[in-house]
C-alpha cells in the first residue's frame, strides 16, 4: 500500500512540475519523475507477499512462490522507452536554447499554445 502512495505522489509531483514550471529542463525533469512513478506503480501491482524473484536459479524455488513476472517485463520496456523520450526531449531543448538563448517558455513562445 505504501508503494502505491509513493508512486502516486511521484506521478502527481511530476505532473505539477510539467504543468506549472516555466523552465524547459524543469519540464523534462517533471516528465522523467512521472515515468518513475508509473514504473513503481506497475511493479508494485505485480508484487506478491513472501514470494521470490521470478528466476529459477535454485532447485528449491517453485512457481507458486514467485512474484508476477509480466509487470517486470513490461516495466523493463517502459524504462528504456522513457530514456529514449528524455533523450529526444533534451535534444529539442538544446536546439531551442540555441535559437532563443533562453530556457524560459514565456520568452520562447511564438506559436500559439
Amino acid at each position, binding site marked *: 500500500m505504501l508503494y502505491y502512495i509513493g508512486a502516486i505522489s511521484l506521478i502527481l509531483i511530476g505532473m505539477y512540475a510539467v504543468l506549472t514550471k516555466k523552465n524547459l529542463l524543469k519540464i523534462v525533469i517533471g516528465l522523467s519523475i512521472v515515468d518513475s512513478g*508509473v514504473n513503481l506503480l506497475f511493479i508494485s501491482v505485480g508484487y506478491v507477499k513472501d514470494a521470490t524473484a521470478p528466476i529459477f536459479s535454485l532447485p528449491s524455488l517453485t512457481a507458486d512462490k514467485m512474484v508476477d513476472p509480466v509487470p517486470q517485463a513490461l516495466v523493463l520496456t517502459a524504462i528504456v522507452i522513457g530514456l529514449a523520450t528524455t533523450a529526444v526531449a533534451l535534444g529539442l531543448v538544446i536546439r531551442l536554447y540555441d535559437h532563443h538563448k533562453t530556457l524560459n517558455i514565456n520568452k520562447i513562445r511564438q506559436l500559439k499554445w
Partner: protein
Amino acid sequence: MEFSPVLYIAIPLFAAFLIPLLGKVSKTLVKLTPGIVFLYLSYGSILLFPKAMEKPIVQVVAGFKPPFGISLYYGATAAFLITMVTIVGFVIWLYSYKFIIREPIEKYYMLFMMLITGSTGILLTGDMFNMFVFLEITSIAAYSLTAFLRDKDGAEAAFKYLLIGSFSSTFYLLSVMIIYSYTGTLNFADIAGKIDLIPPMAKGFVLVLVLVGMGIEAEMFPLNGWAPDAYSQAPSPVGAVFGGIVVKAGLYAMIRIVFLFFKTPEVMQFLIFMGILTLLIAEMAAMRQHQIKRMLAFSSIGQMGLVIIALGIGTMGSTSAALFQMFNHALIKSLLFFAAGYLVFHSGSKQIEDLEGLGYDKPVTSFFFAVGALAIIGLPPFSGFWSKLLILVSVAKAGDIAILLLILTGSVIEAIYYLRAVVKLYTRKEVPDNVRRTPISGLVAMGVLAAIILYVGLYPGVIEKWLAPAANNLLNAADYIKAGLF
C-alpha cells in the same frame, strides 16, 4: 514464402536497420529503400486483402498461442486501413523523393519509414502493451521529424508535441496497468471477455485514461493543441503522413478499445458530442488561419470530428461511412499537403495571401490543389462526395436532425475557407518570374492521388463493397473475441 501480416513490421524494421549501411554505399540506394519496401507491402496487402475480408487472419508471434504470446489481428477493418496506409505511404515516399533535399537524408528516410510502420503496427496489433510500443515508435519518429527542418518554430512545435505526447503515452500505460492488474492479461480479445472483472470505478477511470491518451493521437477536442503546429512546421510530406496516416491509426486504436470494452450508449453519446465539438471548433479555427498549412491542419482535425460523430452513431451504415471518409481523407489530405508544399515552396511564403496568381504561374500544382479542395468539401464527381453523403444519410436515418444540421454547418464553413483559398490562387496578378519547377516525382505523386480520387468518385463501388465487412468487423466485438482467441 507466403505473405504474412508480420511482414508489415518485420520488413520495414529490417530495412531501417539496413539503411545506415546502405548510406555508406550510396545515397540513391537509401532514397529508394522505403519506396521498394512500401511497394512490396502494397503488393502483399492486395494479395492478402480478399482473405482478410472473409475471415480475420490472426498471426501469432514467437509461436505461443494468444493470450500468452503477442498476436497480430489482421481483420477486415485492419486490412482496409493498412492497405490504404501502404499505398498512401508509397505515394508520400514518391513525393518526398525530390522534395526532401536537406541533410541528413538517410535519417529522414529512416524516421519517415518508421513513422508509417509504427502506425501500421497500431492498426495491426492484438495486444495492448504492444500497441503502446508502436505508439512510442510513431511518436518518437514524429517528434524528430517535426523538428527536422531545425528552425525555431519546428523545434518549438516538436517540443510541444512531445510534451502532450508523453502525457498521452503515460495515460495509456496507466490504463494498460489497471486493466492488467484486474484481468491478468494483455490480449485485446482476452480482456474483452474478462472486462467485467474490473470494478466500475476503475473501469470508468480506464475509460477516461484511454479516451485522453488516444484522444490526443486522434486529435479529439480539446486535446489537439499540438496538431496545427506540428503539421505546419514539419516538412510537407511529413504533414501528409500525420494527417493521412498517424491520426487514422490513433483514431482506430481509440475506437477499437472503446467498442471492445466500453460500448455503452452513454459512451457513444459522449463520442458524438466530442465529435461535434471537434468538428465545429476546428472548422471555425481553420476559417481564421492565414497560413495555408495551419488551415489544412485544422481542417484535418475537423474531418476527424466528422469521423468521430459517424463512429459514435454506431450503426452499420454510419460506421462504413466513417471508414470510407477515413480512406478519402487520407488520400485527399495528402494531395492537399503535397500541393501546398510546392505552392509554399514556389511563393516563398506560408501565407494564403501570397498565393495570389500562382494558379497561372504554376498551373499543374494549383490544379491539383483545387481538385483536393473540391474533393474535401464533398463535391461530385470526387470521392469525398460519396463518403460525406453516406455520413449524412446515416445520420438522417438515425433520426437526429440537430446533428445533421451541425454537420452541414461545419461543411459550409469548410467550403467557405477552401473556396477562398482556391479563388485566391486563381486571382490574376503579376507574379515575378519563377524558374523553379515542380519536379516530375512530385507531379506524379499528386497525379496518382488525384486519379484515385476521381476514379473512386466515378465508381464508388470499388471501395463501397469492402466497407460492409470492414464495418462489421469493427462493430462486432463477439466475433473479434472468437477470432482472437482461437
